[in-house]
């Protein structure tokens, strides 16, 4: 059985970006779970602990990239699934811009939160 199921149109830009972000996410998502459940127990998270981590430039940058790539990958995945369900024309456009807006808001809020977690302000 060599059939190949993918929700994406192979070779397209969105297909490629879905894969590029996936590769990055493998590492950071696993790292994130490991750090916040096994190294630091989730129940022991405090603002002070978060601030120490987020005030390191490397960690901050990693988390911010995590935010951006996860948002893109997740929302692009949802958009793609809706296209497969037969979304077309005006409705497709409306959904597209709605999703773009939701993503921008998520990234903007996530960025505000990330900055508030540092001791920069």
């Amino acid at each position, binding site marked *: 059985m060599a059939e190949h199921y993918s929700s994406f149109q192979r070779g397209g830009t969105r297909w490629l970006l879905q894969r590029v972000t996936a590769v990055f996410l*493998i590492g950071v998502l696993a790292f994130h779970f490991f750090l916040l459940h096994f190294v630091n127990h989730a*129940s022991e998270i405090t603002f002070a602990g978060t601030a120490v981590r987020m005030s390191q430039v490397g960690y901050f940058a990693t988390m911010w990239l995590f935010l951006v790539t996860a948002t893109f990958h997740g929302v692009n995945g949802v958009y793609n699934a809706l296209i497969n369900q037969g979304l077309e024309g005006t409705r497709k456009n409306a959904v597209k811009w709605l999703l773009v807006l939701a993503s921008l808001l998520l990234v903007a809020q996530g960025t505000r939160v990330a900055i508030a977690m540092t001791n920069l302000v």
Partner: protein
Amino acid sequence: MSHSYDRGFIEDFGRWREFSAGMWAWIFHKFTGWVLIGYLFTHIAVLSTATASDPAVYTDTLQGLEALVIVRFLEVGLLAVAVFHILNGVRLLFVDLGVGLEAQDRSFYASLVLTGAITVASVPTFVGGVLA
């Protein structure tokens, strides 16, 4: 390049009885992907307590959530979902590269078994403090 063939309307979940391993892998991958993006929006909303002027709001909110047994179980579920999406995602990336095509079904079962094992092994750490 790739040639296409009529595989039927795969978004038709009503056909689940006819599904092969690859179809299940595809359904699980969708489901876990949607859970993850849903979680991300919720996660940022909860973490937004960090923007309050009093740092205690963030600490109290997170610790309050972690004190609930139900939240701990949801987290175990989230871990299972994330682990499956990662492992199956890696499998999909290999399939795209044309590597291991003949082992597609086996690698899907391997993803399932590994997800189960990692999840079970993590339960003590995840529920530690509220139950154990």
